């Protein structure tokens, strides 16, 4: 399972890439593998306010629906509209083209609540 070193992670398998005050978020390769073929995503709405670990999106795969949680609080600046017709991008490129939203962070210190790559990898090992 790929776990890029430059990202931070939640226990619920979301990732965050921080660039200054902004962050791009998505779900990890492990998460997309567990979900299976993704068929639909209910994206966050631009200008919505997200709370850390509050529900940000809903992803449906062939057999189930899963809530996706915001790694940090903030305002949604962009949602990856390409996923509306091609949600499979999340399976194919979970850290790249499968990004879910861009957030303007409310409180940078929240990043310290998240796991780094090593901690997330250890977390994955515990799960199996």
């Amino acid at each position: 399972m790929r776990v890029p070193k430059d990202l931070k992670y939640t226990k619920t398998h979301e990732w965050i890439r921080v660039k200054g005050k902004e962050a791009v978020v998505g779900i990890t390769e492990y998460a997309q593998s567990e979900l299976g073929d993704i068929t639909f995503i209910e994206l966050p709405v631009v200008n919505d306010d997200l709370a850390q670990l509050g529900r940000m999106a809903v992803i449906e795969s062939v057999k189930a629906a899963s809530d996706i949680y915001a790694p940090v609080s903030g305002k949604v600046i962009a949602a990856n509209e390409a996923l509306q017709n091609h949600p499979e991008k999340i399976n194919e490129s979970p850290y790249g083209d499968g990004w879910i939203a861009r957030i303007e962070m409310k409180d940078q210190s929240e990043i310290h609540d998240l796991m780094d790559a090593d901690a997330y990898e250890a977390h994955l090992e515990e799960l199996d």
Partner: protein
Amino acid sequence: MELDSKGLGRTPLYGRHVEAGARMVPFAGYLMPVQYSGIIGEHLQTREKVGLFDTCHMGEFLIRGPAAEADVDRLVTCRVDDMSVGQCRYGFLTNTSGGIIDDLIVFKMSTEEYMLVVNAGTREKDAGWISRHLSTGTSFCDVSDGTAKIDLQGPDSMKILSEIPGFDAGDTIKRFHFTFVEIEGVRVLLSRTGYTGEVGYELFCPSREAVRLWDLLLGFEEVKPIGLGARDTLRLEAGYPLYGHDICEDRSPIEAGLERFVYFDKNFMGCESLRRQRDDGCRQEMTAFVCEGRRSAREQFSVSAGGRAVGTVTSAGFSPCLKRGIGLCYVDKEFASKGQEISLSGAGLKIPAVVEQTPVYKKRAG
């Protein structure tokens, strides 16, 4: 049947699925492959080329004797007395009220021998029901554990079979017919039947030969293994019911819109009740629906039309061909027509959908 530590059965092909990296899940008391590479890819592979399915978990019964034909004819809804040897038919095992005990396929092996192929989850129930209702001279044998079944389905399935060295099925087997063939020294019952909506075959062989047959067919580069996840999306697009979801003991073949598999001019279990339903009509009917978008409904969602609750979703999922949610539901008769707009609600969602005829996907020509 081998049992693992959780009491779950394994088909003869279990080891092959694990080696192939399949995700295994419990189904009808067996550990089965739900997917190998991905449900959508496996679904499209079957629609466009050819796929291989492990269906060893299903049940097979042999019913033999001079009265076997009459006994079977009294238990199933489809007509049996005019079948020819080498023919098979889809029908239902019904109870005294006409409720569906199981859906099955009846194979006429000879004038005194019939094979019934039943669902895995209902095998014990069916065996009990059938054996209790046979004439004294008729024998019942549950041969499921010794019988393996592998489905080969898709537009290229016959091409693959014809490429097997020494394979000869004579003329092309017609739909709902079967014959015996020899594949690498193994005697295989080959039927032109299936659950995907595509041209395809079911191959029955002794359990001890299952791995060899599986390996031989997967040896063709074009053939890919397909899991239960895609088996479900394929049958849903084709509009085929799944026992325990779309059909059950509380539903009759008539409500399910499947009265063409009921032969009313004979006496069989539940026939009086079914004739009454045919004559008086049923309050509800099963139909297929297609959702407005990619979002799927789920089983047990409520169906509304004309501003009120009119039914329930019994099967639902995603259609890889249509790229929309689809499913089957029972609705009050007046809302069961093609084009009827309905709304599916559950889990905080409200999904617009339309009643459609089956199959809901566009079949390839030819």
